[in-house]
């Protein structure tokens, strides 16, 4: 909002309150859940995930929530959450929290030696929806930093609809596998399959592969 418009809006507030009948305003804060694939060779892409996180930290404000979790063999677990926080209402404290969050992420990246055997993306998304719904944020985002190739352990059941009401799901850096190069339809089918699941669950689906265009990632005030 431009300063002049903000000033006018502030001055016109009493009138707007009267007209709106002092109704409860919708929450304006955001909640972001970043899922990072740590399976197999995808760990090599971790520096890109750090760049995404830095972008998020730079653009999220007081009152917003953020969580970073890894995708491993069984991702539907709180243990997979690397760090999570809700930024304080005071900007100075929020800045300190951002520094601590970045430190936690850096530590995780330094300590990660080898990837997980399986890739449970659905479990991670389920965990994310739970976290996001708990925050009660106005805008909810699940960012999946993965190649979207799900490789579940034999006994895990994940083929059921997921409820993703009012959640924006963004797939980031969906790399092509070796098999995708042989038959690109595999890659396209993978994307279509995820889009179908997300839209069917009531969510909104987007894919951003070019990380130079991160400004479209979340709506910045």
């Amino acid at each position: 909002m431009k300063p002049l418009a903000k000033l006018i809006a502030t001055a016109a507030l009493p009138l707007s309150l009267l007209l709106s009948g002092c109704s409860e305003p919708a929450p304006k804060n955001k909640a972001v859940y970043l899922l990072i694939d740590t399976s197999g060779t995808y760990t090599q892409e971790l520096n890109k995930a750090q760049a995404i996180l830095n972008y998020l930290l730079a653009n999220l404000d007081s009152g917003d929530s953020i969580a970073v979790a890894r995708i491993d063999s069984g991702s539907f677990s709180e243990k997979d959450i690397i760090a999570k926080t809700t930024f304080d209402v005071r900007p100075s404290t929020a800045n300190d929290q951002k520094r601590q969050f970045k430190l936690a992420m850096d530590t995780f990246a330094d300590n990660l030696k080898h990837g997980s055997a399986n890739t449970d993306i659905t479990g991670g998304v389920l965990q994310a929806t739970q976290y996001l719904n708990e925050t009660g944020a106005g805008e909810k985002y699940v960012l999946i930093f993965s190649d979207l190739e799900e490789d579940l352990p034999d006994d895990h059941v994940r083929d059921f609809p997921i409820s993703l009401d009012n959640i924006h799901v963004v797939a980031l850096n969906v790399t092509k596998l070796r098999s995708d190069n042989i038959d690109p339809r595999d890659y396209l089918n993978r994307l279509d399959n995820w889009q179908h699941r997300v839209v069917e669950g009531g969510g909104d689906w987007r894919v951003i592969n070019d990380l130079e265009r991160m400004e479209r990632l979340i709506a910045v005030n």
Partner: protein
Amino acid sequence: MNTLLTLWSDNTALSAAVWLLLGMTLLYAGRQPAHRILLSVGHGLRHTLRMASRALSQLEHQLTARNREVLLAAARNDAERRIEREFTRIQALVARDLSGYPALHRQIGESIERIETSYRDSSESAPLPPAWGDVVNTIAALPSHGDPAVARILSNIQDAVQDTHKETLKAWQSSADKRHKLLAQMQPEWRTLNSKADDVGRTLEALDARTHQLDKQMQHYEDIRRGEDAAVRSLTSSSLTQFFIAGLVLTIALLGGLINFQLIAMPMSEMVGGTSYIGAVKTSDIAAMVIILIEIAMGLFLLESLRITRLFPIISSMDDKMRRRMMIISLTILCILAGIEASLAYMRDLLALDKEALQQSLMMSTGAGVAASHAEFRWIPSLGQMIMGFILPFALAFIAIPLESFIHSLRTVLGLLLVAVLRTLAIVSRLSGNLLAQTSVMLTHAYDLLIMLPLSIERLLRRKAVAQQQTTDEIAALIPDVEAEPALEAPRKSRRSKRSATDNSNDTSTTDDSSALAV
């Protein structure tokens, strides 16, 4: 639609022609009432709009008179204020300068007395030495005849005379010195007198200038009271000038307020939180806005209690003690708010620095970092922001002066605008009335254009009937017996006259139409 179009024949053109003929016939049959309706509607609308125009003109005149009254009343108040101020100044002048007049008078009197005394003293001079020289010369010239005793006596006399002469001369010189001293003592007294007279002159000149000023103000006041047109024109022009100047200053003040808002809105979130909203606006923004508005309100009260502005009559009419208290309280609150703003501005700078450092650390880790800014010059913007934060509230406090001018001149400007709007409406209403009347006449002609075929036939038939009538009359004139049977002729005549009357009525209606057209 197609059914209707082919009602008379399968041939569309033929059917359309039948419809056209039918329509034309119907329109021809209803020509007179249609013309009357169109003309009466046009006339009615014209009349109504003329009435509306007249009413608007009357309203405009009333409003102009009201504006004039308001303007004169405002100007009268203003002139009274000016005259009151002039009187206050004259009173201050008299109290300051002429209150010391008795003392001055006494000083001048004392000075004159001293001068008189000195003058009197200087006039009491010692007698001039007599012509001792002649006496000495005479004694010296006396013959001694060689008598030593006589010579000695004469010599003694000469010495005595010379001694006396010297003493007398000495006394005279001493007296002259004393007089000169007394006269020298008079000089500063004269100067003092001159200076005092100059002071009095200056005071009287200032008083004279003030009274001239007062005379002008009184003349102006008299003009206003008489309600002269020149005074009203001058006041209107003055109000418009005031309005634009005050508007310009208020715009500048608004921009100042905007900068002030920017300066304190962000750090306010540190105090009241950056996540809560009231309606669609952040609470921190509202808090910042409230602080600015309170500063403006305090400025209003301060200037009001100083009697610079007169927006609140209740403050102006307070007794001096209460007013002074109010002034002190307003100024104190303003100073406190200015201090808060200065600290908020400093906090804003700290927050901006912190955010910048965080952004840099985030960017550095992704390899897109930039070189750090020169930290040694960071105190300059910090200090600048603090000074701005402290000064802007006081600058905003003075908004009361242009605000008062703006509000006062707004009444005149709005009145003028309203008069202009009413005048325009009256003109538009009158023009519209005329235009509608003309349109109604034009529509009657357009109506006739639609039925021009039957009208042409009618005209042709009428011309033939007239020609036939003329022929019959001529034949009747040639036969003398015809006049001998008036009883037989009468009904025919009456029929003819009826027909001719009908024709005449038609002609009259046409003439009416023509007259309507002429209208």
